[in-house]
């Protein structure tokens, strides 16, 4: 009887809590959502309208609870630069947020420090907290801090980001890699230098791969030049990245390297080289590409066929030569591609098909 009564009591208590407390909490959540939207609107109008009196407006914003304000300014900080960012910093300082970030960055719980890391871009330059958070013991905090300071300009922190590429945590390495991949002219020089050191074997192989990935993504021709040195590197990942890099930009000196990569031992590298020839329009390599139609690896054959179709008339001539190839796949692929690429319209259509 007692057990039944206890069970009944707990069931009803949870049911009531679910209905009443849940509804109350849900209402509270909606009200907070509304307050947040209002605060966001208010803060964004202050920051974006240069004519607003910052002192008076900041006093208004100071009435918004600090955690809510932190959330709003954090979102705004991610989307603002230049003068708007400067005004945002002033607002944060007047509203007492800067002090909060300083306090949060010294808290014992990592997620509090991660909150501070989120807001790091609101601190004045040279703030001690920035270094503290960038070298925090928790990887999440370090990753967040890197992501946050990357919005302040990559060139300023490029050395720090390059150093973070050898961090023990994959999250930190990802954050640093991402930051560098959004880099401008200022950071290209540093990356070229790092590539040079990597070529000399001064960097860890994994860090070299990360830097090469960044260099392959950035469109600067100086990087392509530096990457050519890796075309004969022992690590196939690096050789593949050289091909990726050459396919992504018009780089005249790339033909010789691509020709070497096309006969690489690794199928992945050959496939990427074939793809790069098509996307980079290296028409002089069309005959070499034709030979790849009979490659032992399926992916290379597929990429070679697609690339030849992309090369236009030069590619079609090569494909025609392979119509009677003894290799049934090469002839079949040539027939298939020529069937598809019988006119200019279908060539452009085929380009869409290449992933």
């Amino acid at each position, binding site marked *: 009887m007692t057990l039944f009564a206890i069970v009944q009591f707990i069931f009803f208590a949870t049911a009531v809590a679910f209905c009443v407390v*849940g509804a109350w909490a*849900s209402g509270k959540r909606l009200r907070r959502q509304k307050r947040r939207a209002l605060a966001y609107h208010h803060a964004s109008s202050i920051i974006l309208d240069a004519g607003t009196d910052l002192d008076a407006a900041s006093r208004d914003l100071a009435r918004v609870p600090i955690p809510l304000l932190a959330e709003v300014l954090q979102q705004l900080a991610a989307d603002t630069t230049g003068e708007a960012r400067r005004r945002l910093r002033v607002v944060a300082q007047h509203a007492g947020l800067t002090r909060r970030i300083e306090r949060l960055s010294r808290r014992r719980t990592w997620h509090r420090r991660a909150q501070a890391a989120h807001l790091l871009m609101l601190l004045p330059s040279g703030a001690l907290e920035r270094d503290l958070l960038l070298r925090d013991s928790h990887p999440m905090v370090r990753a967040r801090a890197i992501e946050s300071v990357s919005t302040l300009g990559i060139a300023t922190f490029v050395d720090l980001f390059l150093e973070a590429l050898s961090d023990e945590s994959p999250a930190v390495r990802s954050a640093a890699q991402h930051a560098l991949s959004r880099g401008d002219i200022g950071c290209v020089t540093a990356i070229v230098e790092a590539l040079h050191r990597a070529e000399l074997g001064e960097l860890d192989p994994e860090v070299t791969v990360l830097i090469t990935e960044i260099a392959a993504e950035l469109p600067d021709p100086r990087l392509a030049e530096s990457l050519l040195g890796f075309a004969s590197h022992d690590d196939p990942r690096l050789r593949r990245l050289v091909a990726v890099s050459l396919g992504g930009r018009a780089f005249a000196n790339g033909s010789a390297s691509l020709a070497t990569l096309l006969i690489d031992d690794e199928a992945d590298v050959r496939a990427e080289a074939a793809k790069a020839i098509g996307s980079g329009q290296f028409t002089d390599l069309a005959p070499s590409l034709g030979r790849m139609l009979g490659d032992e690896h399926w992916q290379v054959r597929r990429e070679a066929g697609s690339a030849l179709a992309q090369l236009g008339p030069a590619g079609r001539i090569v494909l025609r030569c392979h119509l009677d190839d003894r290799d049934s796949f090469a002839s079949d692929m040539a027939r298939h591609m020529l069937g598809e690429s019988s006119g200019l319209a279908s060539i452009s259509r085929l380009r869409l098909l290449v992933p």
Partner: protein
Amino acid sequence: MISTGFDIAIIGLGAVVLLTAALQAGIVLAAVIDLRRSRSRSRHRLWGRVMNSPLAPKVTVLVPAFNEEVTIRESLGGILALTYQNLEVVVVNDGSTDETEAVLIDEFDLVEVHNIYQSVLPTEDIVRLYRSRLDPRLVVAHKLNGGKADALNAALNLATGSLVCAIDADTIITPDSLQKLVAAFVDDPGVVAAGGSVRLTNGGLERGPHGLRPSFPKQVWAACQVVEYTRAFLIGRLGWNQLGGNLIVSGAFGVFRRDKVIEAAGYLKGCMGEDMELIVRLRRYGYENGTPAKVVFNADPIAWTEAPERLSELRQQRNRWYRGLLDVLSRHRRMILRPKYRTAGLIALPYFVLVEALAPVVEAVGFVTLLVGLVLGQVTSGQLLFIASTYGIGLMVSMVVLLLDDVAFGMLTDIRTRFRMVAIAILEHVVFRPLTIWWRLGGLVFYAQGRSDWGVQVRRGFGPNSMPGSPLPKL
């Protein structure tokens, strides 16, 4: 003599129910801890800008489809609307007998391309291979029917991403779900599989303050399944996540490391519970090779799916799930209670045997005993109260889970739906659960007979406003 026998039977039944409830209460507690930790962790994860970068790992979304002409358009639209940058989508039409292929060709402007791929995992033949002219990330393969596992293996053969995401063709996911799941792999290279929560969309979806939110279904069986799914995901996934014994990543939405899945020989053809089987096999393979495989669950990324509403379809589904469970437990019985397999072998698998596999049998025996006892007038009011109390504990666990889910995810707003949900929770426990026990017993018979039919679910579609990319009514 008879009375003593009934006493023993009823006490035995009560003890099993109490033990189950106690185990579940423990897992709920673990789920609360995990929920707190994972929410704090996911708030600071790099799933925003970094996961949107082209340097993020390439993910191939695998979509096996069999007779999905009604839902495939919307679910693929949802997948292609994902904000993840480095994405590829491979749809495998597993010999559909309806218009799935025609719908795909028409909707995504597919053009047939050379049928060439590397057959790492053996599958039925791929008859035609298409690429979309509207979206070059989309690849569609039409293959001979070979079942879901075979379709997934074919998609794995075609995939080029280092990570693969398995999504059912009748499932839609929120645009940022993938980033959140992939972040787990970036954070920890030891993770081989990550799953997200799956919720039901039978009542339709609307835009809530925190993104898409389901309307509570009006259809009673669908409503019962909402309660059931919530409980299953909070206990079965989050709780086990905290305890390190996660054995299931839902086939409807999960991300895997492709090389590890291929190393473990892909999905097992002919297995009813291919999603659970793959996870158990990955874990087993990891332990046996000295590289324990981490399987994580993130409650935040949400996938929406449609549950069967007809009793006949539900019966087939539950029957199939139960056969799947028995199949997996039987195939991996050597892992049970072996210290070598740590939490998976010592706690999780014995729990699945005791609570998931044996419970229907025990409960059915208990029901029959109780009925016979009542007919013979052998059951005392004290015994009835004891049984009611033990079932009340199960109901209490359901209520706690619903409350927890509400506090954590805030999916509900109005008080009327809440009252309805309490009523449905009671109904689910008193009517739906005994029904599932009956269906599962049918599954036991089918399993003993070696039957492997899947049954058919009639798709109704998600409704006009359900696609994440489409305009939804404003709150």
